[in-house]
């Protein structure tokens, strides 16, 4: 099987269409399961009571915001370096979902901050760098939208996306490098998690659901972008009809 075949938008379009349900349906199931575990199985927290349950949305969406940024920059860079159109389209398709998750993490965090910290917002390093991440996404989306020539828009977007990558490790390590109001990580790559196992289970199930959701939604958007950009090609005209 020749995988390079699918680097062409023409061949990828029908494949993406077939892939979508395989991600969308498990995502919906995992969301329901994760929320069930989060609300009914996981115990209340010893300090925060039930207010902590917002982490089941907050933490996965914050992770997704960061992961998707790296992924977007990766695809944008590949698209720029190899002149791979589909890669650049992928970056554009990811940007909206990434921006949504970042905004969701900021909003849920702020709703959690009021009862827990006593304030909706503080300008500490973690919160500020996450806000910058949202601005980078918005900047990427509006930069691409403002340039009519597609290949120039892709290149400009790629430069912005790559420059912004530097912000992701800053967000992740901000709680270690500086004094912040935001607490440190409860789940680390190395070392024991400082969160009770059922709570962690709910969080990881919802993280998986968010991943599957992102893949499904990005594929839907990618198909629309393909049809839009390849509209001069005869097959795309047929696909639209």
């Amino acid at each position, binding site marked *: 099987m020749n995988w390079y075949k699918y680097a062409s938008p023409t061949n990828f379009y029908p494949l993406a269409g077939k892939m979508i349900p395989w991600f969308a349906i498990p995502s919906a199931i995992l969301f329901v399961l994760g929320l069930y575990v989060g609300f009914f199985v996981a115990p209340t927290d010893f*300090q925060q009571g039930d207010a902590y349950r917002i982490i089941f949305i907050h933490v996965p969406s914050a992770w997704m915001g960061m992961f998707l940024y790296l992924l977007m920059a990766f695809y944008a860079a590949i698209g720029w*370096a190899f002149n791979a159109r589909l890669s650049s389209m992928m970056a554009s398709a990811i940007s909206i979902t990434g921006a949504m998750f970042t905004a969701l993490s900021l909003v849920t965090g702020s709703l959690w901050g009021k009862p827990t910290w006593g*304030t909706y917002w503080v300008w500490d390093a973690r919160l500020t760098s996450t806000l910058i991440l949202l601005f980078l996404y918005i900047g990427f989306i509006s930069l691409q939208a403002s340039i009519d020539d597609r290949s120039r828009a892709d290149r400009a977007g790629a430069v912005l996306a790559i420059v912004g990558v530097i912000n992701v490790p800053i967000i992740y390590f901000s709680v270690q490098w500086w*004094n912040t*109001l935001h607490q440190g990580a409860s789940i680390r790559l190395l070392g024991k998690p400082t969160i009770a196992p059922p709570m962690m289970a709910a969080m990881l199930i919802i993280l998986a659901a968010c991943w599957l959701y992102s893949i499904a939604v990005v594929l839907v958007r990618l198909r629309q972008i393909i049809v839009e950009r390849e509209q001069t090609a005869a097959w795309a005209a047929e696909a639209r009809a």
Partner: protein
Amino acid sequence: MKRRHKRIAFIVAGLTGLGIAAALALNAFQDNLVFFFSPSQIAAKQAPTGRTFRVGGLVQEGTVKRETDGLTVKFSVTDTAQSIPVVYKGILPDLFKEGKGCVAQGKIGADGVFYADQVLAKHDENYMPPEAGQAIDSAKAAKTVVDN
């Protein structure tokens, strides 16, 4: 060198340059990125005394006292090495507790007391069921008894 190799080299060089620039910039702004100062830093005169800043640490056990007006609270913030007395008038967040983290914003007076206009609770990264929390608290209490 092909054009695509040039572009890859450009991306790699650009990223390296950016990384170094960001590291230098963050290093230079280190002092401004500090959200709060610890009582030890204040004792060592590293905190800006003339203007508003934040102090962070644990609320020292047994120091929280309410004035008769019901709003003014006095307590000490400690980092276990040094502590600083804080006076605050206002509503405290729910998670404000003795032995837990807090961040107070305000100015330090000539009398060495920190006059706060905002007090935030700093949550830690531990999430556990109430039974586990109680177990830890009683273990701590038992330890203090042994220590004394």
